[in-house]
Protein backbone atom coordinates (compact mmCIF):
# COMPACT_ATOMS: atom_id res chain seq x y z
CA UNK A 1 0.00 0.00 0.00
CA UNK A 2 1.45 3.27 -1.08
CA UNK A 3 -0.09 6.02 0.92
CA UNK A 4 3.10 7.97 1.22
CA UNK A 5 3.26 9.81 4.47
CA UNK A 6 -0.35 9.20 5.37
CA UNK A 7 0.31 5.97 7.17
CA UNK A 8 -1.73 6.93 10.12
CA UNK A 9 -5.03 5.15 9.97
CA UNK A 10 -7.18 8.07 10.97
CA UNK A 11 -5.68 10.36 8.37
CA UNK A 12 -6.11 7.60 5.87
CA UNK A 13 -9.77 7.35 6.65
CA UNK A 14 -10.18 11.11 6.40
CA UNK A 15 -8.24 11.18 3.16
CA UNK A 16 -10.32 8.41 1.71
CA UNK A 17 -13.53 10.17 2.61
CA UNK A 18 -12.27 13.36 1.01
CA UNK A 19 -11.19 11.46 -2.08
CA UNK A 20 -14.47 9.69 -2.36
CA UNK A 21 -16.38 12.94 -2.22
CA UNK A 22 -14.29 14.75 -4.74
CA UNK A 23 -14.14 12.78 -7.96
CA UNK A 24 -13.00 14.85 -10.88
CA UNK A 25 -13.71 12.92 -13.99
CA UNK A 26 -11.86 12.97 -17.24
CA UNK A 27 -14.46 11.72 -19.63
CA UNK A 28 -12.65 10.02 -22.45
CA UNK A 29 -15.51 10.35 -24.87
CA UNK A 30 -15.21 7.24 -26.96
CA UNK A 31 -18.28 5.68 -28.46
CA UNK A 32 -21.83 6.62 -27.76
CA UNK A 33 -21.50 6.76 -23.98
CA UNK A 34 -20.09 10.25 -24.05
CA UNK A 35 -23.55 11.63 -24.49
CA UNK A 36 -24.71 10.13 -21.21
CA UNK A 37 -22.13 12.08 -19.23
CA UNK A 38 -23.69 15.52 -19.81
CA UNK A 39 -27.04 14.09 -18.85
CA UNK A 40 -25.52 12.84 -15.63
CA UNK A 41 -23.89 16.16 -14.87
CA UNK A 42 -26.73 18.51 -15.63
CA UNK A 43 -29.87 19.54 -13.86
CA UNK A 44 -31.92 16.37 -13.74
CA UNK A 45 -29.36 14.00 -12.27
CA UNK A 46 -26.80 16.50 -10.96
CA UNK A 47 -23.75 14.41 -10.24
CA UNK A 48 -22.06 17.44 -8.72
CA UNK A 49 -23.90 16.90 -5.45
CA UNK A 50 -21.77 13.77 -5.04
CA UNK A 51 -18.67 15.83 -5.63
CA UNK A 52 -18.35 14.58 -9.18
CA UNK A 53 -17.11 17.25 -11.47
CA UNK A 54 -15.43 17.49 -14.82
CA UNK A 55 -11.70 18.01 -15.02
CA UNK A 56 -10.12 19.54 -18.05
CA UNK A 57 -6.84 17.69 -18.27
CA UNK A 58 -5.48 14.35 -17.09
CA UNK A 59 -3.20 16.06 -14.61
CA UNK A 60 -6.15 17.32 -12.63
CA UNK A 61 -8.44 14.33 -12.93
CA UNK A 62 -9.09 11.48 -10.51
CA UNK A 63 -11.40 9.29 -12.53
CA UNK A 64 -10.93 8.15 -16.08
CA UNK A 65 -14.23 7.30 -17.68
CA UNK A 66 -14.08 5.04 -20.71
CA UNK A 67 -17.45 5.77 -22.23
CA UNK A 68 -17.84 3.00 -24.76
CA UNK A 69 -15.86 0.84 -27.14
CA UNK A 70 -12.14 1.26 -27.37
CA UNK A 71 -10.30 0.70 -30.60
CA UNK A 72 -6.63 -0.13 -30.48
CA UNK A 73 -5.80 3.30 -31.73
CA UNK A 74 -7.80 4.92 -28.96
CA UNK A 75 -6.50 2.52 -26.36
CA UNK A 76 -3.03 3.84 -26.98
CA UNK A 77 -4.20 7.34 -26.13
CA UNK A 78 -6.16 6.14 -23.17
CA UNK A 79 -3.13 4.41 -21.72
CA UNK A 80 -1.14 7.56 -22.22
CA UNK A 81 -3.79 9.64 -20.52
CA UNK A 82 -4.06 7.19 -17.68
CA UNK A 83 -0.34 7.33 -17.10
CA UNK A 84 -0.41 11.10 -17.10
CA UNK A 85 -2.98 11.16 -14.34
CA UNK A 86 -1.78 11.57 -10.80
CA UNK A 87 -2.21 8.99 -8.08
CA UNK A 88 -4.64 7.99 -6.69
CA UNK A 89 -6.63 7.47 -9.85
CA UNK A 90 -9.59 5.34 -10.75
CA UNK A 91 -11.00 3.94 -13.97
CA UNK A 92 -14.66 3.45 -14.76
CA UNK A 93 -15.60 1.25 -17.68
CA UNK A 94 -18.83 2.48 -19.07
CA UNK A 95 -21.30 0.49 -21.12
CA UNK A 96 -21.27 -3.05 -22.43
CA UNK A 97 -18.65 -2.25 -25.05
CA UNK A 98 -16.20 -1.45 -22.32
CA UNK A 99 -17.29 -4.51 -20.36
CA UNK A 100 -16.86 -7.19 -23.01
CA UNK A 101 -16.79 -5.63 -26.42
CA UNK A 102 -20.55 -5.48 -26.66
CA UNK A 103 -21.81 -5.37 -30.19
CA UNK A 104 -18.26 -5.02 -31.42
CA UNK A 105 -17.41 -8.47 -30.14
CA UNK A 106 -16.05 -9.59 -33.50
CA UNK A 107 -14.54 -6.32 -34.61
CA UNK A 108 -10.99 -6.49 -35.86
CA UNK A 109 -10.02 -3.33 -34.07
CA UNK A 110 -11.90 -3.17 -30.78
CA UNK A 111 -10.62 -4.50 -27.51
CA UNK A 112 -12.96 -6.65 -25.49
CA UNK A 113 -11.34 -6.75 -22.08
CA UNK A 114 -10.42 -3.34 -20.77
CA UNK A 115 -9.04 -4.66 -17.52
CA UNK A 116 -6.24 -6.42 -19.32
CA UNK A 117 -4.75 -3.07 -20.19
CA UNK A 118 -5.81 -0.79 -17.37
CA UNK A 119 -6.90 -1.54 -13.82
CA UNK A 120 -10.63 -0.92 -13.86
CA UNK A 121 -12.32 -0.17 -10.58
CA UNK A 122 -15.96 -0.08 -11.61
CA UNK A 123 -17.81 -1.35 -14.66
CA UNK A 124 -21.20 0.08 -15.41
CA UNK A 125 -23.24 -2.20 -17.61
CA UNK A 126 -25.89 -1.21 -20.08
CA UNK A 127 -26.04 -0.18 -23.68
CA UNK A 128 -25.93 2.63 -22.87
CA UNK A 129 -26.28 2.86 -19.09
CA UNK A 130 -28.81 5.43 -18.04
CA UNK A 131 -27.67 8.30 -15.82
CA UNK A 132 -29.14 6.50 -12.81
CA UNK A 133 -26.81 3.62 -13.49
CA UNK A 134 -23.91 6.00 -13.88
CA UNK A 135 -24.69 7.59 -10.56
CA UNK A 136 -24.86 4.18 -8.98
CA UNK A 137 -21.50 3.40 -10.47
CA UNK A 138 -20.09 6.52 -8.85
CA UNK A 139 -21.68 5.56 -5.56
CA UNK A 140 -20.05 2.13 -5.84
CA UNK A 141 -16.71 3.73 -6.56
CA UNK A 142 -17.12 5.97 -3.54
CA UNK A 143 -17.84 2.96 -1.39
CA UNK A 144 -14.76 1.25 -2.70
CA UNK A 145 -12.61 4.28 -2.03
CA UNK A 146 -13.93 4.64 1.46
CA UNK A 147 -13.22 0.99 2.09
CA UNK A 148 -9.69 1.52 0.85
CA UNK A 149 -10.17 -0.98 -1.96
CA UNK A 150 -9.91 1.24 -5.03
CA UNK A 151 -6.20 1.04 -5.48
CA UNK A 152 -5.93 0.81 -9.20
CA UNK A 153 -2.90 3.07 -9.44
CA UNK A 154 -0.92 0.93 -7.04
CA UNK A 155 -2.05 -2.20 -8.78
CA UNK A 156 -0.94 -0.78 -12.10
CA UNK A 157 2.44 0.21 -10.81
CA UNK A 158 3.04 -3.09 -9.06
CA UNK A 159 1.98 -5.19 -12.02
CA UNK A 160 3.35 -2.93 -14.68
CA UNK A 161 4.97 -5.83 -16.53
CA UNK A 162 1.67 -7.65 -16.80
CA UNK A 163 -0.17 -4.61 -18.13
CA UNK A 164 2.66 -3.62 -20.40
CA UNK A 165 2.80 -7.12 -21.80
CA UNK A 166 -0.88 -7.05 -22.62
CA UNK A 167 -0.65 -3.59 -24.08
CA UNK A 168 2.33 -4.40 -26.23
CA UNK A 169 0.61 -7.51 -27.49
CA UNK A 170 -1.95 -5.47 -29.37
CA UNK A 171 -0.16 -2.15 -29.84
CA UNK A 172 2.32 -3.29 -32.44
CA UNK A 173 4.31 -0.16 -33.05
CA UNK A 174 5.18 0.77 -29.52
CA UNK A 175 6.37 4.37 -29.67
CA UNK A 176 5.61 5.44 -26.15
CA UNK A 177 8.30 7.82 -24.99
CA UNK A 178 10.59 6.34 -22.42
CA UNK A 179 10.17 9.35 -20.19
CA UNK A 180 6.73 8.16 -19.40
CA UNK A 181 7.47 5.78 -16.56
Amino acid sequence: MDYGIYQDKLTRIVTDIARSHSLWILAYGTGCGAIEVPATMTSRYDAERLGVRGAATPRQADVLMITGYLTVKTLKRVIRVYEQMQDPKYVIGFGSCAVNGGMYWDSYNTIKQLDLYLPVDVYISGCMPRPEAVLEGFAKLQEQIRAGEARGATKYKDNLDYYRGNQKKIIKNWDFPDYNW
Partner: protein
Amino acid sequence: MEGILMSILGAIATFLLAFVVGMTYGGIRRKVIARVQNRYGPPIYQNFIDAFKLFSKTTAVHHGAMHLLGPAFLMVSAVVALMIIPVLRDNIWFTNLNFKGDLIFLIYIMTFGPLGMALGAGQTGNPNSAIGVTRGLSQMVGFEIPWVMALVALMIKYNTTSVVDLMNVQNEVGQWLIFQNPFAFVAAILASLGMFRYAPFNIVGAPTELASGPASENGGKFLFTMMSAGSVFAFVKLTLLVDVFFGGASNLIELVIKTFLLYMIPVMYGVVNPRYRTEQAVTYFWGWPLLFGFLAIIYSVYF
Protein backbone atom coordinates in the same frame (compact mmCIF):
# COMPACT_ATOMS: atom_id res chain seq x y z
CA MET B 1 9.24 41.13 21.00
CA GLU B 2 5.63 40.74 21.94
CA GLY B 3 4.71 42.93 19.05
CA ILE B 4 6.57 40.73 16.61
CA LEU B 5 5.02 37.57 18.03
CA MET B 6 1.62 39.13 17.91
CA SER B 7 2.02 40.27 14.33
CA ILE B 8 3.23 36.82 13.29
CA LEU B 9 0.24 35.20 14.99
CA GLY B 10 -1.98 37.85 13.48
CA ALA B 11 -0.57 37.17 10.07
CA ILE B 12 -1.29 33.48 10.41
CA ALA B 13 -4.78 34.24 11.67
CA THR B 14 -5.38 36.58 8.74
CA PHE B 15 -4.23 33.98 6.32
CA LEU B 16 -6.46 31.32 7.81
CA LEU B 17 -9.39 33.71 7.79
CA ALA B 18 -8.81 34.60 4.18
CA PHE B 19 -8.40 30.96 3.22
CA VAL B 20 -11.57 29.82 4.99
CA VAL B 21 -13.67 32.74 3.83
CA GLY B 22 -12.40 32.53 0.26
CA MET B 23 -12.97 28.79 0.06
CA THR B 24 -16.44 29.04 1.55
CA TYR B 25 -17.38 31.79 -0.85
CA GLY B 26 -16.20 29.59 -3.66
CA GLY B 27 -18.43 26.82 -2.36
CA ILE B 28 -21.35 29.19 -2.10
CA ARG B 29 -20.71 30.25 -5.65
CA ARG B 30 -20.91 26.69 -6.85
CA LYS B 31 -24.12 26.25 -4.90
CA VAL B 32 -25.56 29.43 -6.37
CA ILE B 33 -24.71 28.35 -9.88
CA ALA B 34 -26.31 24.99 -9.21
CA ARG B 35 -29.49 26.55 -7.87
CA VAL B 36 -29.73 28.86 -10.84
CA GLN B 37 -29.42 25.83 -13.09
CA ASN B 38 -32.16 24.11 -11.07
CA ARG B 39 -29.75 21.63 -9.55
CA TYR B 40 -29.28 20.64 -5.95
CA GLY B 41 -25.60 21.44 -6.13
CA PRO B 42 -22.59 20.40 -4.10
CA PRO B 43 -22.39 21.11 -0.39
CA ILE B 44 -20.99 24.50 0.57
CA TYR B 45 -17.91 22.87 2.03
CA GLN B 46 -17.20 21.07 -1.25
CA ASN B 47 -14.23 23.30 -2.01
CA PHE B 48 -12.53 22.24 1.20
CA ILE B 49 -12.98 18.60 0.24
CA ASP B 50 -11.58 19.29 -3.21
CA ALA B 51 -8.63 21.18 -1.77
CA PHE B 52 -7.89 18.45 0.73
CA LYS B 53 -8.14 15.81 -1.94
CA LEU B 54 -5.79 17.73 -4.21
CA PHE B 55 -3.40 18.16 -1.32
CA SER B 56 -3.47 14.45 -0.56
CA LYS B 57 -2.62 13.37 -4.10
CA THR B 58 0.42 11.19 -3.78
CA THR B 59 2.24 11.89 -7.04
CA ALA B 60 2.80 14.91 -9.19
CA VAL B 61 5.01 15.92 -12.06
CA HIS B 62 6.81 19.17 -12.76
CA HIS B 63 8.38 20.56 -15.88
CA GLY B 64 11.27 22.47 -14.40
CA ALA B 65 12.19 25.24 -12.00
CA MET B 66 9.78 27.89 -13.24
CA HIS B 67 6.91 25.45 -13.14
CA LEU B 68 7.68 24.81 -9.50
CA LEU B 69 7.99 28.51 -8.81
CA GLY B 70 4.84 29.56 -10.63
CA PRO B 71 2.25 28.48 -8.05
CA ALA B 72 4.67 29.53 -5.33
CA PHE B 73 4.80 33.05 -6.79
CA LEU B 74 1.03 33.11 -6.93
CA MET B 75 0.80 32.13 -3.28
CA VAL B 76 3.50 34.61 -2.25
CA SER B 77 1.77 37.43 -4.02
CA ALA B 78 -1.53 36.55 -2.38
CA VAL B 79 0.09 36.39 1.04
CA VAL B 80 1.98 39.66 0.63
CA ALA B 81 -1.13 41.44 -0.61
CA LEU B 82 -3.03 40.08 2.35
CA MET B 83 -0.33 41.21 4.75
CA ILE B 84 -0.50 44.74 3.45
CA ILE B 85 -4.21 45.24 3.20
CA PRO B 86 -6.02 46.41 6.34
CA VAL B 87 -8.51 43.65 7.05
CA LEU B 88 -10.24 45.17 10.04
CA ARG B 89 -10.30 48.73 11.29
CA ASP B 90 -7.98 49.50 14.16
CA ASN B 91 -7.53 45.87 15.00
CA ILE B 92 -4.12 45.00 16.32
CA TRP B 93 -4.37 41.38 15.25
CA PHE B 94 -4.99 42.17 11.67
CA THR B 95 -2.43 44.92 11.24
CA ASN B 96 0.12 42.43 9.92
CA LEU B 97 3.10 44.14 8.33
CA ASN B 98 3.29 47.67 9.58
CA PHE B 99 2.38 49.13 6.26
CA LYS B 100 -0.65 51.19 5.59
CA GLY B 101 -1.97 49.58 2.48
CA ASP B 102 -0.55 51.60 -0.34
CA LEU B 103 -2.88 51.21 -3.30
CA ILE B 104 -0.23 51.37 -6.02
CA PHE B 105 1.87 48.85 -4.19
CA LEU B 106 -1.17 46.63 -3.86
CA ILE B 107 -2.05 46.85 -7.54
CA TYR B 108 1.46 45.86 -8.49
CA ILE B 109 1.87 43.12 -5.96
CA MET B 110 -1.45 41.67 -7.04
CA THR B 111 -0.25 41.47 -10.63
CA PHE B 112 2.95 39.78 -9.58
CA GLY B 113 1.22 36.53 -8.72
CA PRO B 114 -0.52 36.02 -12.03
CA LEU B 115 2.69 36.94 -13.83
CA GLY B 116 4.67 34.40 -11.84
CA MET B 117 1.99 31.86 -12.56
CA ALA B 118 2.21 32.82 -16.21
CA LEU B 119 5.91 31.99 -16.21
CA GLY B 120 5.21 28.68 -14.55
CA ALA B 121 2.51 27.94 -17.08
CA GLY B 122 4.90 28.91 -19.84
CA GLN B 123 7.50 26.39 -18.83
CA THR B 124 5.08 23.50 -18.91
CA GLY B 125 5.22 23.69 -22.68
CA ASN B 126 1.51 23.19 -23.01
CA PRO B 127 0.18 25.46 -25.75
CA ASN B 128 -3.12 25.86 -23.92
CA SER B 129 -1.30 27.34 -20.96
CA ALA B 130 0.40 29.98 -23.05
CA ILE B 131 -2.82 30.87 -24.85
CA GLY B 132 -4.57 31.21 -21.51
CA VAL B 133 -1.81 33.42 -20.22
CA THR B 134 -1.93 35.75 -23.20
CA ARG B 135 -5.67 36.02 -22.78
CA GLY B 136 -5.32 36.74 -19.09
CA LEU B 137 -2.73 39.44 -19.64
CA SER B 138 -4.84 41.05 -22.37
CA GLN B 139 -7.83 41.07 -20.10
CA MET B 140 -5.73 42.56 -17.34
CA VAL B 141 -4.84 45.51 -19.53
CA GLY B 142 -8.56 45.88 -20.13
CA PHE B 143 -9.86 45.99 -16.60
CA GLU B 144 -6.89 47.71 -15.06
CA ILE B 145 -7.81 51.00 -16.74
CA PRO B 146 -11.25 51.59 -15.20
CA TRP B 147 -10.01 50.12 -11.95
CA VAL B 148 -7.12 52.55 -11.79
CA MET B 149 -9.38 55.39 -12.86
CA ALA B 150 -11.73 54.68 -9.99
CA LEU B 151 -8.86 54.58 -7.54
CA VAL B 152 -7.19 57.66 -9.01
CA ALA B 153 -10.45 59.56 -8.64
CA LEU B 154 -10.43 58.80 -4.94
CA MET B 155 -6.72 59.36 -4.56
CA ILE B 156 -6.95 62.79 -6.13
CA LYS B 157 -9.96 63.73 -4.09
CA TYR B 158 -8.40 62.79 -0.76
CA ASN B 159 -4.81 63.39 -1.81
CA THR B 160 -3.58 60.07 -0.59
CA THR B 161 -2.67 56.68 -1.92
CA SER B 162 -3.15 54.84 1.32
CA VAL B 163 -6.09 52.57 1.97
CA VAL B 164 -5.96 53.44 5.64
CA ASP B 165 -6.32 57.13 4.89
CA LEU B 166 -9.26 56.38 2.65
CA MET B 167 -10.82 54.32 5.42
CA ASN B 168 -10.29 57.15 7.87
CA VAL B 169 -12.37 59.58 5.85
CA GLN B 170 -15.41 57.32 5.94
CA ASN B 171 -16.27 56.91 9.57
CA GLU B 172 -20.03 56.95 9.15
CA VAL B 173 -22.32 55.29 6.70
CA GLY B 174 -23.03 58.56 4.93
CA GLN B 175 -19.34 59.15 4.40
CA TRP B 176 -18.74 55.88 2.63
CA LEU B 177 -17.06 56.53 -0.62
CA ILE B 178 -19.71 54.61 -2.51
CA PHE B 179 -21.99 57.52 -1.64
CA GLN B 180 -19.28 60.14 -1.98
CA ASN B 181 -18.34 59.04 -5.46
CA PRO B 182 -20.78 56.49 -6.85
CA PHE B 183 -19.23 56.65 -10.32
CA ALA B 184 -15.95 55.42 -8.96
CA PHE B 185 -17.73 52.54 -7.30
CA VAL B 186 -19.47 51.56 -10.51
CA ALA B 187 -16.23 51.70 -12.46
CA ALA B 188 -14.44 49.67 -9.80
CA ILE B 189 -17.13 47.03 -9.56
CA LEU B 190 -17.31 46.66 -13.31
CA ALA B 191 -13.53 46.28 -13.37
CA SER B 192 -13.75 43.74 -10.59
CA LEU B 193 -15.92 41.58 -12.82
CA GLY B 194 -12.83 41.06 -14.91
CA MET B 195 -10.65 40.73 -11.87
CA PHE B 196 -12.63 37.81 -10.52
CA ARG B 197 -12.50 36.06 -13.89
CA TYR B 198 -15.93 34.56 -13.57
CA ALA B 199 -18.16 34.27 -16.58
CA PRO B 200 -18.35 36.09 -18.97
CA PHE B 201 -14.71 36.91 -18.31
CA ASN B 202 -13.49 33.37 -17.66
CA ILE B 203 -11.49 33.41 -20.86
CA VAL B 204 -8.30 32.39 -19.09
CA GLY B 205 -9.43 29.08 -17.69
CA ALA B 206 -12.07 28.36 -20.33
CA PRO B 207 -12.26 24.60 -19.66
CA THR B 208 -13.98 23.73 -22.89
CA GLU B 209 -11.67 25.80 -25.05
CA LEU B 210 -8.30 25.74 -23.41
CA ALA B 211 -8.42 22.79 -21.05
CA SER B 212 -8.28 25.14 -18.07
CA GLY B 213 -5.51 27.27 -19.54
CA PRO B 214 -2.54 28.01 -17.29
CA ALA B 215 -3.60 25.29 -14.88
CA SER B 216 -3.67 22.59 -17.51
CA GLU B 217 -0.41 20.97 -16.47
CA ASN B 218 -0.94 21.41 -12.77
CA GLY B 219 -2.42 18.68 -10.69
CA GLY B 220 -2.35 17.70 -7.06
CA LYS B 221 -0.31 19.99 -4.90
CA PHE B 222 0.19 22.62 -7.58
CA LEU B 223 -3.52 22.88 -8.13
CA PHE B 224 -4.05 22.99 -4.39
CA THR B 225 -1.64 25.90 -4.12
CA MET B 226 -3.35 27.69 -6.97
CA MET B 227 -6.77 27.04 -5.52
CA SER B 228 -5.85 28.37 -2.09
CA ALA B 229 -4.08 31.35 -3.58
CA GLY B 230 -7.15 32.05 -5.68
CA SER B 231 -9.33 31.95 -2.61
CA VAL B 232 -7.02 34.26 -0.71
CA PHE B 233 -6.93 36.58 -3.71
CA ALA B 234 -10.70 36.66 -3.87
CA PHE B 235 -10.76 37.63 -0.22
CA VAL B 236 -8.11 40.29 -0.78
CA LYS B 237 -10.02 41.85 -3.65
CA LEU B 238 -13.27 41.86 -1.72
CA THR B 239 -11.63 43.31 1.36
CA LEU B 240 -9.99 45.98 -0.72
CA LEU B 241 -13.33 46.95 -2.24
CA VAL B 242 -14.93 47.00 1.20
CA ASP B 243 -12.09 49.07 2.61
CA VAL B 244 -12.16 51.58 -0.17
CA PHE B 245 -15.86 51.98 -0.78
CA PHE B 246 -17.64 50.72 2.33
CA GLY B 247 -15.51 52.17 5.06
CA GLY B 248 -13.90 48.89 5.99
CA ALA B 249 -15.24 46.68 8.72
CA SER B 250 -14.77 46.96 12.42
CA ASN B 251 -15.52 43.33 13.22
CA LEU B 252 -15.46 40.05 11.44
CA ILE B 253 -19.22 39.70 11.06
CA GLU B 254 -19.45 43.07 9.37
CA LEU B 255 -16.57 42.11 7.12
CA VAL B 256 -18.16 38.84 6.13
CA ILE B 257 -21.54 40.43 5.41
CA LYS B 258 -20.06 43.23 3.33
CA THR B 259 -17.69 41.04 1.40
CA PHE B 260 -20.37 38.45 0.78
CA LEU B 261 -22.77 41.00 -0.66
CA LEU B 262 -20.03 42.36 -2.88
CA TYR B 263 -19.01 38.88 -3.92
CA MET B 264 -22.50 38.15 -5.12
CA ILE B 265 -22.24 40.85 -7.80
CA PRO B 266 -19.67 39.10 -10.01
CA VAL B 267 -21.16 35.72 -9.17
CA MET B 268 -24.65 36.75 -10.19
CA TYR B 269 -23.35 38.50 -13.25
CA GLY B 270 -21.51 35.34 -14.13
CA VAL B 271 -24.26 32.76 -13.81
CA VAL B 272 -26.43 34.38 -16.43
CA ASN B 273 -23.73 35.13 -18.98
CA PRO B 274 -21.86 33.01 -21.48
CA ARG B 275 -18.21 33.54 -22.22
CA TYR B 276 -16.79 36.47 -24.15
CA ARG B 277 -14.16 36.27 -26.80
CA THR B 278 -10.85 37.80 -25.83
CA GLU B 279 -11.19 41.03 -27.73
CA GLN B 280 -14.75 41.40 -26.47
CA ALA B 281 -13.55 40.91 -22.92
CA VAL B 282 -10.87 43.54 -23.43
CA THR B 283 -13.00 46.12 -25.15
CA TYR B 284 -15.88 45.60 -22.69
CA PHE B 285 -13.82 47.50 -20.12
CA TRP B 286 -13.14 50.33 -22.54
CA GLY B 287 -16.82 51.06 -22.93
CA TRP B 288 -19.09 51.80 -20.00
CA PRO B 289 -16.53 51.14 -17.26
CA LEU B 290 -14.17 53.65 -18.87
CA LEU B 291 -16.96 56.20 -19.10
CA PHE B 292 -17.75 55.73 -15.44
CA GLY B 293 -14.07 56.08 -14.68
CA PHE B 294 -13.98 59.43 -16.47
CA LEU B 295 -17.13 60.52 -14.68
CA ALA B 296 -15.58 59.51 -11.37
CA ILE B 297 -12.49 61.59 -12.05
CA ILE B 298 -14.51 64.58 -13.22
CA TYR B 299 -16.77 64.23 -10.23
CA SER B 300 -13.93 64.11 -7.79
CA VAL B 301 -12.06 66.98 -9.41
CA TYR B 302 -14.94 69.41 -9.87
CA PHE B 303 -17.40 68.51 -7.13
